[in-house]
């Protein structure tokens, strides 16, 4: 029996994830790399297989039964996402490849309208995907990139927020939950400050949307980006939510088939939302798969997913804190990730020895090299959790940490 406090039936949830039956190096797999990508339930895998076996066709253009079935399912997935994040309609939901593409779409489109010297504010804890696009476009277009600092606990510094969001700021782009520190940023409050200064609020929700109920209207985010593959869905499908009036006024990011209304030798008028931003044949099976992943999460309830995450991460932090020589990064109130280092042992060595015990964690800079320089470490190890993980797995992980210490004799 699994001893969990949760009201969720973890044992039956685990049965939905075929990969959890796997053994790694002869040990049961303990998958704690969920912040990188989550595992997939059989419902998602089967829905994608069913699509390919039964109604594979191109969407939006085929006047035949298969094409109509595929189109209906693909469009329905947009509607499911809209409900999931409390958006007005499927028209606010653009499918992309992933969070990175969503953020690039926003960055390219929004910065095209800015003037030299206009400012964009990001924070020190951003993932490279919410950092490099702004940095590079700022360089190309003569814009100024400002950095909101983090405090010693790993939260955004209140004073630095006020200092860096001013009347000169046109765009504020922040992560909702840090993929390294686990910090949950007060997006609603910051959006208010951004809007008081007539700046737009862009949110990287890659680590938030899979783990907590999201209400884009309550947050008052102008744009909200996330990836399907971190929330039980397949890779190759991501989401960009945008306010309708903004999406309508923006230039398309990719030009080509399907995103047009009419093309002549002289010019092109564009399709209606959201298709205006979905050029070319999209990842249809992946869109269908993401729709089923959303069904799965909705059935469980995101408040329950969040509650379960909290139980797991608190247990992990408690157990890790009891191990001598372990440094934990990030604030007490955190998402489902815990970054840490063990004595002076390099994070890659920690991950390698844990792997030999069947425990999969991430080690490195987590695509946050600027943040690593703020924390003054070359790398951290990171364990990240999801609804199918258990306290017993955390115990196996802690045993693995002791093994790391034994191997290195510390």
């Amino acid at each position, binding site marked *: 029996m699994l001893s969990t406090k949760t009201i969720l039936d973890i044992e039956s949830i685990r049965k939905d994830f075929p990969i959890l039956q796997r053994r790694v190096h002869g040990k049961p797999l303990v998958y704690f790399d969920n912040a990188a990508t989550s595992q997939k339930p059989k419902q998602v895998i089967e829905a994608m297989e069913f699509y390919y076996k039964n109604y594979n066709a191109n969407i939006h253009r085929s006047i035949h039964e298969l094409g109509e079935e595929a189109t209906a399912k693909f469009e329905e997935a947009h509607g499911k996402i809209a409900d999931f994040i409390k958006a007005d309609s499927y028209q606010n939901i653009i499918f992309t490849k992933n969070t990175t593409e969503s953020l690039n779409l926003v960055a390219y489109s929004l910065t095209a309208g800015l003037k030299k010297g206009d400012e964009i504010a990001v924070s020190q804890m951003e993932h490279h995907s919410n950092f490099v696009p702004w940095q590079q476009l700022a360089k190309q277009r003569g814009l100024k990139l400002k950095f909101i600092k983090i405090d010693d606990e790993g939260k955004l510094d209140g004073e630095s927020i006020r200092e860096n969001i001013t009347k000169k700021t046109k765009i504020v782009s922040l992560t909702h939950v840090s993929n390294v520190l686990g910090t949950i940023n007060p997006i609603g409050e910051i959006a208010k400050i951004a809007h008081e200064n007539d700046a737009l609020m862009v949110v990287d929700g890659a680590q938030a949307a899979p783990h907590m109920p999201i209400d884009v209207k309550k947050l008052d985010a102008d744009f909200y980006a996330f990836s399907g593959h971190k929330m039980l869905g397949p890779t190759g499908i991501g989401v960009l939510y945008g306010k309708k009036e903004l999406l309508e006024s923006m230039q398309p990011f990719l030009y080509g088939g399907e995103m047009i209304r009419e093309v002549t030798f002289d010019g092109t008028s564009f399709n209606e939302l959201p298709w205006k931003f979905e050029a070319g044949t999209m990842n249809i099976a992946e869109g269908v798969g993401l729709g089923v992943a959303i069904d799965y999460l909705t059935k469980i309830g995101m408040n329950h997913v969040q509650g379960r995450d909290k139980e797991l991460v608190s247990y992990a932090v408690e157990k890790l804190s009891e191990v001598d020589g372990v440094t934990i990064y990030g604030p007490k109130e955190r998402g489902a990730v815990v970054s840490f280092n063990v004595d002076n042992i*390099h994070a*890659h060595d920690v991950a*390698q020895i844990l792997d*030999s015990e069947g425990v999969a964690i991430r080690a*490195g800079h987590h695509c946050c090299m600027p943040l690593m320089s703020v924390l003054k470490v*070359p*790398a951290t190890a990171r364990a990240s959790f999801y609804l199918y993980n258990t306290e017993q797995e955390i115990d196996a992980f802690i045993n693995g940490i002791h093994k790391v210490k034994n*191997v*290195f*004799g510390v």
Partner: protein
Amino acid sequence: MMYQENILDHYKSPRNFGKIDKASVHHHEYNPLCGDEIEMFLVIEDKKIVDVKFNGHGCAISQASASMLTEQIKGKSVEELKKLTKENILEMLGIPLSPVRLKCALLSLDTLKNSILIYEKYIER
């Protein structure tokens, strides 16, 4: 098993660790993926390595590899060292390495080879 005793021994007590003030050439390489760093100092006389030291930090594989390499190259000719390959390093370490960890293991060889390149191109007359 990757963390064999000899690897851990070299990691914990690296040989030829330190700096040489009057080195013929010194060069620093960085592996941004892991944050491994190695700086190598070579004293070269008559096209031979007469002394070598290294400095750095990082994972056990990168540092043990540098330590073992410095032991092997003392007294060798520059020409011999230029012929060193990935296979030589793997043989020296004697452990199975995943593709991801190969970069850690080979950082010392990259540092050595680039040191020699710089020496031949800019320092040696």
